[in-house]
């Protein structure tokens, strides 16, 4: 990356001489990784629909990386065209593959997908994945049709000097990186969505049924919450939900969700603290 970095003075001097066509920058960003456990398109579609229904605006036009590591032969058998079409129909934009065999990679490149070096450890991958519960194949055997566990290959080795990889970055340390919490004083009404990007969210009024509050960090709710609450929307596992009166339709922390139906009756109508423990929502006293 250093080679690409120039001092701003140098840039200015050069700009004066000739116009610049572009600047090349290495940006660290976190991307959703879709770890495929099956090639059954209808199953993928069904599960996608459920996931997206939880957080539609989060997945709208989101770029995704396809992790082929869990597939037989490192994805050599994947026919990408229908898979890409399916993802596009779900408003996801597949941009690259990772963790693929050579054959799988060739197929992907032929279909216009990029190749990302597989570098992340399991923990880091999980952090960037927005749907961690389904990501580990051994936990959901029902979804696997044909799995031969190919060893995860570090394909970095045989790559022609890759550009600095936007490796799945650690999730945003919300509210610690300097961005102050977003504060909402008005009730969040049915149909309204409040999203605190890269920060905590504080709601002083109620969140009504059909309203949604989402934060990349934690969510603090001082009014009754009857709508949906998502903390750690980008996968930040330390995020939590703090609320004075829990009557939510749905709560989610770092990819783990709980519907109203799953919330124990004794927790309803009371104050609560909700966190994600081992990929599951846990509700405790505030």
């Amino acid at each position, binding site marked *: 990356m250093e080679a690409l970095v120039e001092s701003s003075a140098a840039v200015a001097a050069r700009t004066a001489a000739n116009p610049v066509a572009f600047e090349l920058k290495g940006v660290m960003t976190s991307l959703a990784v879709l770890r495929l456990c099956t090639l059954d398109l209808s199953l993928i579609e069904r599960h996608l629909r459920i996931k997206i229904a939880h957080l539609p605006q989060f997945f709208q036009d989101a770029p995704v990386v396809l992790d082929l590591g869990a597939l037989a032969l490192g994805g050599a058998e994947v026919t990408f065209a229908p898979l890409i079409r399916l993802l596009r129909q779900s408003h996801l934009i597949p941009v690259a593959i990772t963790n693929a065999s050579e054959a799988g990679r060739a197929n992907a490149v032929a279909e216009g997908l990029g190749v990302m070096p597989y570098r992340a450890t399991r923990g880091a991958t999980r952090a960037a994945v927005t749907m961690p519960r389904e990501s580990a194949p051994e936990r959901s055997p029902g979804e696997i049709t044909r799995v031969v566990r190919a060893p995860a290959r570090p394909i970095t080795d045989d790559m022609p000097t890759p550009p600095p990889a936007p490796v799945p970055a650690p999730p945003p340390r919300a509210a610690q990186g300097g961005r102050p919490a977003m504060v909402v004083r*008005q*009730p969040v*009404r*049915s*149909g*309204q969505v409040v999203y605190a990007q890269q920060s905590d969210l504080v709601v002083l*009024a*109620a969140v*009504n*049924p*059909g*309203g949604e509050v989402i934060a990349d960090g934690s969510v603090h709710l001082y009014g*009754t919450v*009857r709508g949906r609450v998502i903390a750690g929307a980008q996968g930040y596992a330390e995020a939590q939900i703090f609320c004075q009166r829990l009557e939510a339709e749905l709560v989610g922390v770092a990819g783990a969700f709980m519907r109203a139906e799953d919330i124990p009756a004794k927790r309803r109508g009371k104050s609560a603290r909700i966190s994600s423990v081992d990929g599951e929502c846990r509700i405790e006293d505030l």
Partner: protein
Amino acid sequence: MSKVVVVASGKGGVGKTTTSANIAAGLAQKGHKTVAIDFDVGLRNLDLVLGCERRVVYDFVNVIKGEAKLNVALIRDKRIENLYVLPASQTRDKDALEPEGVGRVLEELKTLGFEYIICDSPAGIEKGAQMAMYFADEAIVVANPEVSSVRDADRVLGLLSAKTSRAELGKTIKSHLLLTRYSPTMVKKGEMLSVSDVLELLGIPLLGVIPESKAVLQSSNKGTPAIMDDTTDVAQAYLDVVYRFLGEEREQRFIDEEKKGIFRRLFG
């Protein structure tokens, strides 16, 4: 000083048109020059409830399109002085309502000296409803005491705070709640949401409670707003609403079950 007031609910059938007609009639009875505009293009109703359907020649869309002059399209009520109706078009579709045209007509009504411009919104949250609320200074949100109606009212309140001209200028729209078709008996049995349930959820001031009553249906069919026959509880309730809307203090009625004396309990 003119005030544009939208009567909205999101959900259909909760009593928007009845409320628009009665509040407009009540304000006019109190001496304020008032016009009720039907924004429900294609489903013209307000003229029926106000009993002027046989006098409709031109409509709101004609005026917007410049096909008729405003003072020609306005229908003057024969019974109540100061009350005017601008009916909806029954043949056009909602796309005929475009913001510039609607805004121009509202401005013209203001210059004609109308103190209150009551915009009867269609159900839903689509274009017609959005146009009805866009220029509003105040809103009367009508809800029935049941969950779907309350949720829709909540949605409408959200739109009022986002998709209106005042909201775009960073100002708020004063919103009042009107709870219609209320039955204290059913509330007591737990079959209906109570006033306090609804207020807790919506968090806006209560303009009034209109009791469930046959008088509403009868008056709609007759084309005479219920408020004109002040012997009924509905008329009393709407009168209270009009007074409160004009800033007078009136104690809330029709919230609790009528206390029956021993004779009425025995005989009926």
